């Protein structure tokens, strides 16, 4: 204000705010904060159809067959489920409760064990064989997958409480891996063995 000598005038920086505002608005608009979420699965390795197939021997008793038909109805074992049997009320859907009960029952007849902290625990033998008609809708298929996952997670939670005394989500990574070993998520996504042979 009261400088003695005025040399080269300073650059007017009042437009700086405007420029940065412009940039800010640009980044505000272009930013997408979404994180990728999804349901993880592992596919079985490819087996050449010409090769001799040696199917893994599983006890029929430990396999629950789930079939998704093209009209959206679902066969679970010998029973027919409708779309609303997938909807949850009070935390469970009819399907997830059924699969959970199956997992609890299937556990009894096995021989293999996994060692967790020096103690032996049986490995869950329950296997869900999921088949879907080629014309069935993906949204139904994924909803079925969702309920199956939920049933497995419920059972993992049970085993976790049995082994560690707390729920599965409160365990650290190593403990969770142990529980996953004891309760592997055995969902077999069967290949299409019907009309459209690929």
């Amino acid at each position, binding site marked *: 204000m009261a400088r003695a000598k005025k040399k080269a005038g300073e650059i007017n920086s009042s437009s700086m705010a405007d420029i*940065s505002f412009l940039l800010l608005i640009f*980044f505000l608009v*272009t930013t997408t904060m979404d994180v990728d*979420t*999804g349901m993880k*699965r592992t596919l079985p390795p490819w087996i050449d159809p010409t090769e001799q197939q040696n199917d893994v021997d599983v006890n029929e008793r430990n396999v629950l067959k789930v079939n998704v038909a093209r009209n959206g109805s679902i066969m679970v074992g010998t029973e027919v489920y409708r779309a609303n049997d997938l909807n949850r009320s009070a935390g469970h859907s009819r399907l997830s409760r059924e699969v959970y009960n199956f997992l609890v029952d299937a556990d009894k007849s096995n021989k293999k064990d996994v060692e967790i902290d020096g103690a032996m625990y049986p490995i869950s033998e329950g296997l869900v064989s999921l088949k879907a008609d080629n014309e069935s809708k993906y*949204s139904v298929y*994924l909803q079925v997958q969702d309920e199956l996952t*939920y049933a497995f997670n419920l059972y993992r939670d049970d085993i976790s409480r049995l082994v560690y005394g707390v729920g599965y989500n409160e365990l650290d990574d190593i403990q969770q891996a142990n529980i996953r070993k004891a309760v592997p998520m055995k969902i077999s996504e069967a290949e299409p063995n019907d009309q459209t042979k690929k």
Partner: protein
Amino acid sequence: MAKKGKREVPAMSTSSLPDIVFMLLFFFMAATTMREVDPLVTAQLPKAHEITELDKKNLVNIWMGKPLVSSSEDKGDALAIQLNDKTQEVGDIQNFIGATTATKGMEPTQIVVNLRVDKDATVGKLTAVKQELRKANALSISYAAMKNE
């Protein structure tokens, strides 16, 4: 500096405004990830409860959905597959996985293939894609889904 006779309430200083704006700017610049590929298909993802967050580093996206207008002239088929920035056929998936893993310097078994499938798609199409993935030895997959509240 003012030569006013009587002092009024001074105007609010706006000199820190640029600083604040810059701070916000840097935040958004750091948080922004530019979309690498233009969508050619619309895939309305289904909703699910039991989903997990996926690590972006080893994620490879495959879109399956209705083709957008520009590319749908000769396609009588209602479902298109998008790999990177073009719509391709099921048979191209093996090459795509090979090329992608080569550029990433990873083995096919190390990547997670994120299947962004439209909820109205049929399971048959999905199965065909999964078979190709098995042939390409890309066995870790994920069904992309939105959180169901």
